[in-house]
């Protein structure tokens, strides 16, 4: 085992997959000589050349469409959106071409779209968005969102080897802030499987991405107050790991769903709905959602702090639920 950062984990996954399989290549804005806006692809063009690490024109729809066409011809492209926010420009290619190819005419489209998402970096409305909700209503896509270096590496490898279009939501706040152990040898984290980030018995906090760490902080404080939290890190947002969700509900009977995405129509709404449809009898309180308010992501630090769910918000929600 070795300790690496979340960012290094992504880079290692790309590097190892490119070395393993000549059909894997990277395309996007400034990914080559510059190494990407966040330096995730730094050094790869020197190693694999300009035809496997392609700097593209500023045209998200065009290069996403091109990735789809290359995938239809047997390649395994990894598209980098410089910021997840820009994925909106490629919405049509992802939703109408990539997501529907296999269902409509049986054509597998193995593309990965890396989407550096989330706030807490003072990026303002166009460099901080959570985009998973735009796509979670699109059958045919898969969406993953790792919270640890281990999962960042294992899920990216799984996404590259998967035969379907995968949107890989990498939280840019975690790039250099999270560090954990990964094996020296090759491994994958299967798509579609959540993990128990913390075992507990009184209340379940179901979350993903950077909020897993917020939940862990909250759980520590709550533990000191005698409340035992179980934290479920969803890891895959489409399709959801229903079994893992139902298991924790059956265990604790109390649920807080936590995410940085805005509240209305978010992943939390879907998680709440499937729990209520399938596990109603196990609940002994309402499902509480802790999420960003329904506004764009504000720039100023004072407002961004209110916008992004904080540890205190999670503690308040859990305590409210425990009193129920």
């Amino acid at each position, binding site marked *: 085992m070795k300790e690496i950062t979340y960012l290094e984990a992504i880079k290692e996954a790309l590097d190892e997959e490119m070395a393993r399989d000549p059909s894997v*290549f990277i395309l996007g804005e400034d990914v080559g000589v510059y190494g990407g806006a966040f330096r995730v692809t730094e050094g790869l063009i020197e190693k694999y050349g300009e*035809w*496997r690490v*392609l700097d*593209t*024109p500023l*045209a998200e*729809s*065009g*290069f*996403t*469409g*091109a*990735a*789809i*066409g*290359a*995938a*239809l*011809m*047997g*390649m395994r*492209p990894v598209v980098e959106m410089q910021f997840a926010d820009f994925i909106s420009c490629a919405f*049509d*290619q992802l939703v*109408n*071409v990539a997501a*529907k*190819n*296999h*269902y*409509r*005419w*049986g*054509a*597998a*489209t*193995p593309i990965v779209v890396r989407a550096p998402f989330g706030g807490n970096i003072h990026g303002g409305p166009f460099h901080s968005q959570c985009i998973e909700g735009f796509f979670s209503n699109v*059958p*045919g896509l*898969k969406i993953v969102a790792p919270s640890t270096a281990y999962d960042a590496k294992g899920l990216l490898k799984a996404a590259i080897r*998967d*035969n*379907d279009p995968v949107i890989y939501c990498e939280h840019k706040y975690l790039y250099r802030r999270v560090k954990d152990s990964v094996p020296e040898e090759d491994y994958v984290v299967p*798509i*579609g499987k959540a993990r128990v980030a913390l075992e507990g018995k009184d209340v379940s906090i179901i979350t993903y991405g950077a909020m897993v760490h917020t939940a862990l902080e909250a759980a520590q404080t709550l533990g000191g107050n005698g409340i035992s939290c179980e934290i479920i890190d969803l890891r895959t947002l489409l*399709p959801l790991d*229903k*079994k893992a969700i139902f298991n924790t509900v059956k265990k604790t009977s109390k649920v807080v769903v936590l995410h940085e995405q805005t509240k209305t129509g978010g992943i939390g709404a879907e998680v709440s709905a499937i729990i209520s449809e399938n596990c109603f009898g196990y609940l002994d309180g309402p499902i509480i959602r802790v999420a960003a308010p329904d506004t764009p992501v504000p720039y100023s630090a004072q407002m961004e702090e209110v916008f992004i769910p904080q540890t205190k918000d999670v503690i308040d929600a859990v305590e409210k639920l425990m009193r129920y």
Partner: protein
Amino acid sequence: MDIRREELLRLYYYLKLARKLEERATSLYHQGKILGGVWTSYGMEAVSVGYGCALERDDVAAPYFRDMGAFLARGISAKRIMAQYLGKKTGVTGGKEGSTHIGDLNLGVFSFPSHLADNYPVGVGAALAFKIRGEKRIAVTCTGDGGTSRGDFHEAMNLAAVRKLPIVFFCNNNQYAYSTPLRLQMAVNNVADRALAYGIPSKTVDGNNVVEVYTAAKEAYTVARNSGGPTFIECKTMRVHGHSEHDSAKYVPRELLDAWKTKDPILTMERYLAGSVGMKQEELDGVTAQVVKEIDEAEKFAEESPYPDGTDCFTGLYATPIEEE
């Protein structure tokens, strides 16, 4: 360019096959047997027959919906297409899709989304794969005049030009995008003028003359195959009927329609074959008889084929399904 006699007959065969197939589909639509719509390439068959027949086996086409000639020339059979129109299990997509939303990777054909010009970047991606792997294959893609107003058209052309990719772009300029005439679609005189902005050489050809389209395509394919980069080919033609079978096209001036009727691509080809080439009428009649027989068989096959089960709607979402324990 010298085109062999057999190749000329092949072009004529696909012109007739596309025409007859779409005529039959139109008739089935009016009998209420096709529940969705029917959008045809009637009067524009030379465009896709020309570019489709000029391809080599290993090449790839990313067509749009008025490219019946290309679908057929690539080898998608009339039977499968007719069954597709009727929503049958034996159709190209087994009932998942309708009309000409068809693709078959084994035959090098990409299905197209209704969002016009979406297949432009996708076609470019196929060309990119060939370039990365150093293969001597090319990709082609096509859209209508309306589609050239979309961003994907421009993003694809630019990307292909910057990377000098082996792709040839086609435009079926049929003067109308549904009811919108060309003058409200663009302020340039030729669609081909748009290629200038990307540094892509272009050519405007008579889209009703299959030999002209085929010749221009062959030349551009040779350039692309030999690392010379993309070409844009505008095929000027006319949509001599409605946007689809439910559209009477009242908004098109009658004189314009009449002027184009004399330029019908099949009549044009027949005049050429009988004149310059010196083919006998019996030879052409033989092609027609073969085509009619094929279409009759295709219709029978489609009519007798089973419908899919309603529950087939749950199948095929993912290529790598997620296993639920």
